[in-house]
């Protein structure tokens, strides 16, 4: 069984609002076992994954009094926004509310290659897209 993959994004929400940018204020880490996974701790995490793996994207505000939730995701291939959901590398992509914290989840499809994505973050009711382009590297190797 492929272990679920969690990506935790730590966001300095106060700085995002004052800078009007996520640059330098957004850090991603994951629990991937993929040897090709890189960029832990940065805003440009590259996660090696495989067909059938469940992804969970969580966001944690560094300023705990802030209300911050991941509320959307959009995908890119070769830098071009994917507009047809059937062309996205993941299925069942949706928001889940949970007592321990809300998150976004999806399952990797039977595809190969590199896909970039952006997360949409809701900070205190204001939704915005992160400025970086983290990515997934879908390989045939089971993680």
């Amino acid at each position, binding site marked *: 069984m492929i272990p679920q993959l969690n990506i935790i994004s730590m966001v300095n929400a106060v700085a995002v609002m004052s800078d009007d940018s996520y640059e330098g204020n957004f850090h991603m880490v*994951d*629990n991937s076992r993929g040897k090709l996974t890189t960029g832990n701790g940065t805003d440009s995490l590259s996660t090696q994954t495989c067909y059938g793996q469940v992804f969970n994207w969580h966001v944690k505000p560094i300023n705990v009094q802030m209300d911050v939730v991941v509320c959307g995701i959009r995908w890119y291939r070769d830098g071009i926004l994917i507009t047809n959901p059937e062309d996205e590398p993941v299925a069942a992509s949706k928001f889940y509310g949970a007592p*321990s914290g809300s998150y976004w989840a999806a399952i990797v499809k039977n595809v190969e290659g590199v896909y970039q994505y952006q997360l949409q973050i809701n900070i205190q009711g204001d939704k915005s897209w992160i400025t970086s382009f983290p990515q997934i590297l879908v390989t045939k190797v089971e993680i």
Partner: protein
Amino acid sequence: MGQLAIIVAVDAQAALAQGSLDGHIYLVDNNKHAGSTGQGTADLVTHIAGTQIMNWLVTGLNFLPGSPRVTLENIGGEAVLKNIMVPQQFESPELGGGRGLWWGGSVDSNQDEKQYSYRLDLKVGDTLMSHTAQILVKEGFSNVSMSVPPVKEGVA
């Protein structure tokens, strides 16, 4: 005065498998504007200028039932031993994910600008592991008090 928060993210399963936190712990604070370096790495150096209260929030990267938990058990080391940092554990019913407990503290320095290490004693699953982090005290200032009573003092 804004409170300073440090998120400590730990890949508990990987740390337990390796028997070490090396490569599996990531620290981020909200004091980048004051010059903190090493954001998102294990080598965070939190710059502290002016009166400040610090809070540490620990999270694991594994959330499935049965996954090893990560909790902060103590804060010690050089900065605590020298009374530069005064960490204490507090209780909050709003922090259910951490058993309602969190570590906070203040820094008290009237010395020259200097970097101090401190030690985070983490319980990963049933295993105690430690990580050394750094603070850079940029100017002397007076101690400040937390507004709630602690349930535990840090042991150097």
